[in-house]
């Protein structure tokens, strides 16, 4: 559930528009058939590493032990920074892509201009910031009460998100003809005009394998988060079994749900129309005339159904998805900081625990404050655009974990030999974990490269790439400043250094 919340089931809706608009000829359900096998090696690697080294901190611990603590810290630090950048945006997604289309949709169906106007008002930066502040305080109050409370809240959100997903599928069931009739009468344009305009501007209606393969990138990115439970493996019982279920099971279930959602989009709006409207929107065409912020499926709900309960549930479900994902991210980051603090890379004060609930409250306060600052920076400056390649950074992190996993059985023979049998399995004399490490590296390198391609984000912006490098440099600097300070005392390098066992 945690991993599925981290991935955000209903995020599939905007991802579908982006994928369909950017990769001409993509078959969205088909992308899942490629994305799922790609995710499995990473899922298994994270599950096995977490079974072999079931400690809080995830790749920080694994990479530190297999390669070098500085590399482990660097990779984990960047992941945490990227996630803080994403958290900053979550309240905006809730309001602008969840609540606003819900109000607008109900307003359109009921002919209530007041609701439509309200949808615009609540999308303002001030509203977003107010929701953000309330959200971050609520998160702090939830997380400070410990894992149990956090998961209770997560379950509550999960149920609402699942209800929203089901409502979307139900809304799509009447099919394309019903949609076409409603769209043609309500939108001021017609389905045929949208498709014809898009085709005249270069849109292709036929699916191709190449486009589907490239379009997989968005489906794969939507899967980001399926291995996040590995970052608090130290807090999970029966970690070997639990992680396989959570990480591998999470990826499989989520992929199946995404496949169903993609099919529902095609069923409810037609593949050609959805591709065409997405294309017109993504290319900034003047032929995109809908009175909607974007042709994301949740915005298109009033053309699919007149049932306000379904529109409400989809809007509420989507509104919950970013909030649940943000909660999952903050939970993960506090665990990372806790692990760094334990090893004294950062001040030990950051691993102080709340006496009553045993939660790392100082780390939590720090993350919540940083999230509030990041949100303000995102709302009022362009600075966070420098983290546009955050997803690239994230997959650079999994690539580093892939290398760590590949060499783990050889560099840390002691831990490998004492690991549970499943993690020690060999295929043709080669440790399975090594094979998974190599595959993880290959998949991650492919995804990281694909996210830099013009098709994904437009022209490559070298400043954005520099932002990743700078973050790595900052992490390395923190590590070595801390390390050199401690050289006069107990050297930091001793934290993970193996004592001769013979």
């Amino acid at each position, binding site marked *: 559930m945690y991993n599925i919340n981290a991935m955000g089931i209903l995020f599939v809706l905007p991802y579908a528009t982006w994928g369909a608009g950017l990769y001409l000829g993509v078959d969205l359900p088909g992308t899942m058939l490629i994305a799922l096998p790609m995710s499995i090696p990473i899922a298994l690697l994270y599950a096995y590493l977490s079974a072999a080294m079931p400690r809080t901190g995830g790749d920080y611990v694994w990479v530190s032990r297999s390669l070098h603590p500085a590399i482990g810290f660097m990779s984990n630090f960047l992941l945490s920074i990227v996630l803080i950048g994403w958290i900053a945006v979550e309240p905006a997604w809730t309001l602008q892509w969840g609540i606003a289309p819900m109000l607008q949709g109900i307003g359109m169906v009921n002919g209530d201009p007041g609701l439509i106007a309200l949808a615009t008002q609540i999308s303002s930066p001030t509203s977003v910031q107010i929701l953000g502040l309330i959200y971050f305080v609520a998160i702090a109050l939830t997380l400070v009460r410990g894992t149990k409370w956090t998961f209770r809240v997560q379950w509550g959100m999960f149920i609402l998100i699942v209800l929203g997903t089901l409502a979307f599928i139900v809304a799509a069931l009447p099919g394309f003809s019903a949609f076409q009739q409603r769209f043609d009468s309500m939108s001021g344009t017609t389905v045929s005009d949208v498709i014809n305009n898009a085709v005249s501007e270069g849109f292709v209606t036929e699916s191709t394998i190449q486009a589907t393969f490239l379009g997989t990138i968005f489906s794969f990115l939507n899967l980001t988060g399926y291995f996040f439970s590995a970052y608090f493996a130290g807090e999970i019982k029966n970690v070997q079994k639990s992680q396989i279920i959570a990480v591998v099971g999470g990826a499989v279930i989520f992929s199946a749900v995404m496949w169903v959602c993609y099919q529902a989009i095609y069923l409810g709006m037609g593949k050609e129309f959805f591709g065409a409207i997405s294309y017109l929107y993504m290319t900034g065409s003047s032929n995109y005339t809908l009175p909607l912020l974007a042709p994301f499926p949740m915005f298109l709900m009033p053309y699919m159904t007149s049932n306000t309960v379904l529109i409400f549930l989809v809007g509420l479900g989507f509104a919950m998805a970013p909030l649940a994902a943000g909660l999952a991210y903050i939970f993960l980051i506090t665990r990372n900081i806790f692990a760094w603090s334990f090893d004294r890379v950062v001040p030990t004060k950051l691993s102080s625990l709340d*006496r009553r609930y045993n939660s790392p409250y100082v780390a939590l306060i720090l993350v919540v404050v940083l999230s509030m600052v990041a949100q303000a920076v995102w709302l009022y400056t362009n600075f966070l655009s420098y983290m546009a390649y955050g997803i690239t950074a994230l997959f650079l992190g999994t690539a580093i974990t892939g290398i760590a996993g590949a060499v783990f059985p050889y560099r840390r023979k002691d831990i490998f030999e004492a690991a549970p049998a499943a993690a020690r399995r060999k295929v043709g004399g080669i440790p399975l974990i090594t094979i998974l490490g190599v595959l993880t590296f290959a998949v991650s390198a492919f995804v990281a490269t694909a996210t830099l391609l013009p098709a994904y984000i437009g022209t490559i912006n070298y400043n954005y790439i520099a932002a990743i490098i700078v973050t790595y440099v900052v992490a390395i600097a923190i590590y070595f400043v801390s390390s050199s300070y401690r050289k006069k005392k107990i050297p930091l390098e001793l934290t993970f250094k193996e004592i001769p066992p013979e």
Partner: protein
Amino acid sequence: MSKLRILFVTDVHGSERCFIKFVNAGKFYNANALILGGDITGKLVVPIVEKEGTYVCELMSSQQVARSKEELAKLEKLIRDIGYYPYHTSSSELETLRSSPEKLDQLFSKLMCESVEKWMSIAEERLRGTNIECYVSPGNDDRFEIDSIISKSSYVKNPEGQLVKIGGSHEMITTGFTNMTPWKCPRDIPEDELAAKVEALTSLVENFETCIFNFHCPPCNSGLDMAPKLDENLTPVLGPGAAPTMIPVGSPSVRAAIEKFQPLMGLHGHIHESRGTVKLGKTLCLNPGSEYTEGILRGALIDIDGKKIDDFLLTAG
């Protein structure tokens, strides 16, 4: 008062790999004193049965087969490294042992004592002439038979129930007894008895400012004593997201003594998953946790300069 570097580890639970690392850690970390704070013995005997030239055993729910003497030696080492005691037997003897808990218990005691004797010899051999002090005390899981074996060692000191001076300067009082656990281990005692033991030990101390409390049981509700809540079948109670419900299980008496006397440092173990450090008033309390099943020696490396702790680091060596 001179500077001291201490390595404190705990809960190796029979892992020979961890014990050898502990002995080697003195030179590795440049430490003046090594302290192993309890729960040093294993929990299981692993019978190895010879069958038609092969050696078969059940280890961690899977069958292991050694097909040569070399493979057998490797298998025995793996069993010892995990913290169990390998035992060569026949199918018929195995049946007898399975049907007689008393005989099995005697065998376990014998193998456990042999293992502790071997460990003491290893420590004597490797540490003699190094000037590295070595203290090994029993914990609540350890049977009483091992006390005399440790005490007989010509190098290792058993500080249980005593006051010793580390580096000739810092007093240390030690007890491996803990409050009651659901498993009713050999040194589990009621809280009031533990309080009496702690009081008797503190009465020996001359200078609390430089004193070390080496109490296997962590102070109650300190964050160093969070263990999974168990149901009536001793199964962890899981909360949402498969996370076990954690509750404090440490000793109120230990906490009260630390708060009252404010020693320099409290060294604790017992709860493997509660690795951490916490300040109770002026006292730094540490629980290095345990990862013995993975062959990793978790430790706390502490630099002491007279009345103050100069630095510390939790290690995973």
